[in-house]
């Protein structure tokens, strides 16, 4: 009997023993209680006997996958069968928000422990530096989120799991669950329309509609654990982390200098922050006028830029139409498409180079786009003309067939007349 009991205990030991062995040296492993004969030998999840609502956490989520059980965070004695004993030892219970962050950090800030999973360990330090962390640790403000509010409490999914609240498409909603709450935000004088703006922004459309996870969510610009709004002089650099070439051109131009001096909120001056609008080609000068005024010297310059961009847009569109026309007529358009792609590269370069506000560069690119467009248009026109010439065949077709029909009808009439004559002569 005793042998059987011991065997069962040792067989179950790896599951229970691993988190126990991984515990910091200061804590002692809970001693196994005297087993009631016939009781279950799995003592790792004994807490679930009472806390049945947390049962799923024992099997689901990244912690369950890696053998992190109740006792790893809450302490206590999972092998106990009675309450005082179960909540004995280093029992943590339900930690408050600040303690929760410390508790998570006790493992997640340990490089030795995280090496196995390839996880970074700076989250707690970053969190302390963030606005949320400052409020939580400095002022004991419980409005701010702690780790579990974004990552989940007992069932914690990794960020690449679509069920996670920090999965890319879920992040904006997770942030908005507090930041769209007007009552909560009124206390801190923070606006609540960021999510609504983001949803329709270039980034939001890319994220939600195109499922393009290269598009930034809230954390892309504000940081995930070290969340804070970028300062005025930082903005261009933050955008430039993704829009590298645009930022290089921007920095070379007059606006770049102004932004470095803090006189201009960087990219946001034209594109706004959470709404991130693209500036349509035909409203470039109107955008410039917002700051410079329509009676300023700059206005004519803005109109010149707009003129070139509008013209280049029309050119590239007409080149695309020309290729479609040729393809519909059965032409092999591989070469023309290649030509079109080079034109498209110049066109995209316009979008990037115009941030430098140099008219000569723009002129050069617009001319290149135009030359591609004219080339393709003329080829498409040639195809259309030869297609039109096909229709000239209608003339001989109808001339010949109508002549044949008329001749046949005349012959038929002649035959009938002959028959009638012969009939009458017979009678």
């Amino acid at each position, binding site marked *: 009997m005793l042998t059987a009991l011991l065997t069962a205990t040792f067989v179950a030991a790896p599951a229970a023993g691993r988190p126990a062995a991984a515990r910091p040296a200061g804590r002692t492993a809970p001693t196994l209680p005297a087993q009631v004969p016939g009781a279950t030998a799995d003592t790792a999840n004994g807490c679930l006997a*009472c*806390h*049945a*609502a*947390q049962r799923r*956490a024992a099997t689901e989520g990244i912690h369950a996958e890696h053998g992190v059980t109740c006792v790893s965070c809450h302490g206590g004695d999972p092998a106990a069968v*009675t*309450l005082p004993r*179960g909540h004995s030892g280093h029992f943590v*219970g*339900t930690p*408050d*928000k600040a303690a929760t962050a410390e508790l998570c950090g006790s493992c997640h800030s340990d490089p030795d422990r995280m090496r196995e999973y390839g996880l970074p360990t700076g989250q707690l330090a970053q969190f302390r530096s963030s606005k949320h962390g400052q409020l939580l640790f400095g002022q004991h403000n*419980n*409005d701010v*989120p702690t780790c*579990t*509010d974004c990552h*989940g*409490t*007992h*069932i914690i999914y990794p960020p690449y799991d*679509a*069920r996670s*609240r920090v999965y890319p*498409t*879920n992040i*904006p*909603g*997770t942030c*908005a*669950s507090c930041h769209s709450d007007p009552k909560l935000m009124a206390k801190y004088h923070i606006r609540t329309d960021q999510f609504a703006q*983001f*949803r329709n922004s270039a980034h*939001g459309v890319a994220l*939600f*509609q195109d*499922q393009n996870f290269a598009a930034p969510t809230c954390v892309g610009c504000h940081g995930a654990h070290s969340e804070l709004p970028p300062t005025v002089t930082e903005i261009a650099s933050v955008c430039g982390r993704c829009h590298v070439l645009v930022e290089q051109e921007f920095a070379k131009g007059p606006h770049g200098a102004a932004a470095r001096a803090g006189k201009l909120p960087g990219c946001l001056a034209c594109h706004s922050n959470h709404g991130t609008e693209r500036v349509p080609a035909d409203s470039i000068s109107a955008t410039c006028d917002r700051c410079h005024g329509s009676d300023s010297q700059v206005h004519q310059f803005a109109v010149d830029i707009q003129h070139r961009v509008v013209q280049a847009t029309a050119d590239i569109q007409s080149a695309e139409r020309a290729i479609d026309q040729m*393809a*519909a*007529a*059965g*032409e*092999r358009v591989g070469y023309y498409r290649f030509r079109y792609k080079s034109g498209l590269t110049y066109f995209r370069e316009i979008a990037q180079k115009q941030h430098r506000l140099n008219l000569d560069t723009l002129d050069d690119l617009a001319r290149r786009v135009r030359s591609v467009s004219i080339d393709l248009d003329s080829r498409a026109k040639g195809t259309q003309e030869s*297609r039109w010439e*096909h*229709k000239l*065949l*209608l003339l001989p*077709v*109808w001339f010949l*067939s*109508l002549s*044949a*029909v008329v001749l*046949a*009808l005349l*012959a*038929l009439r002649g*035959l009938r007349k002959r028959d009638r004559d012969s009939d009458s002569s017979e009678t």
Partner: protein
Amino acid sequence: MMSRDPKAAREWFVRLWADLKASTDASLLVILRFVGLLYGPLDTRLPIGKAFRKALRHRLSPEAGWRQAFGGIAYLLFIILVVTGVLLSFYYRPSTQEAYQSIQHIVSGVSFGWLMRDLHVWAANLVVLGALLHMARVFFGAAYKPPRETNWIVGVLLLFSVFAFGATGYLLPWDQWSYWTVTEGLDILARTPLVGGWLVRILRADPIVSGATLSRFFAIHVIVLPWLVLGLLALHFALVRKHGVAPRVSANRTGRTGVPFFPYHFLRMVITGTLVVAVALTAALLFPRPVAAPANPAQPPGMLFSTWILADVSRALIYYLGGWGFGAFLLLGAGMVLLPIFDRSPERRLRRRPIVAALGVLFFLTFATAWGAGWRLRSIPTTTSGELTPFQKQPTGATPGAPLPSIAPASRPATSGSDTTNSGGAP
């Protein structure tokens, strides 16, 4: 071999000379008579010249006239389809790698290849019309009554062969329209009770329309169906020849012996034939079938353009009446096809056959209306514009980016001690 018997050789030459002399009259079939030089001397029972004269002198019943033209029109269009089809097959390559490129080559590289292709497309549309008009004439004119009911069944089989020709030929261009129309069509066919799934497995040969499907459709289109149709046509014509043209509703046979096939009916054939060729050429010249983008099984096209009369009709029926309307129309067609097998009364006047008249009028009116509606629908968007496809739709929430329904217990209140509710069951 003749030289061994000089007498027989001389006889052969005498007969040959006589035949040559007979061939020098201004006959329309002088070339075929020269063929008779080979045929005549060898087969003494009926020299070819005489055989032709006999055929030309064959007297048609006095009822034969313009009303009988539709069958001939359908036959002429079939001949056009065979000729253009053979020419196309010189260049067409039935593989997913080469099909689209070979069509491009036919349209833009081969001289008059574009004409062959457009003529093939348009003759395929017109042959359906010709066959249906022929069918309507037979149906309303009670030409299917005994002894011609077998020929009605052969005719119906020919009509189905025409449909099968069009359906299999539709896939061969291997562009987006043909690929997705066939996918759609096979999906509809798969829902046919009892045989649908089995039939589609055989036809498609793969879980999706693929190269295997293309090979099967090509083989059916150029090997199976042509031989089948040739056999059916031979039977059809033999039966027409055996039973003669059906008598008119108000038969008045007294004192009329009919006219010889040549030149009376031959001239009518020349007139209708010329007009049919001219109409097919005109349609092909004025409305060439565009070459769509190459087939892409991963991406349905934004617009699905239909290029075949039956695709127009079925699409309009499904679009306006739904699947049940389409099914009801198929039942109506089946009723029309089967009715002549049961309708064996000698009554020929349409006024005395109200059920037949109603059925026929309903069928042909629906067909014509659906065709007209299909023309208006020629290209319908595959999805309602602006709406996300099912693939793009987020399975998790109605609004993009909305927070997930929480799986774990929702973020708990900031204060500690609320997690004790579960311990109520503890002893």
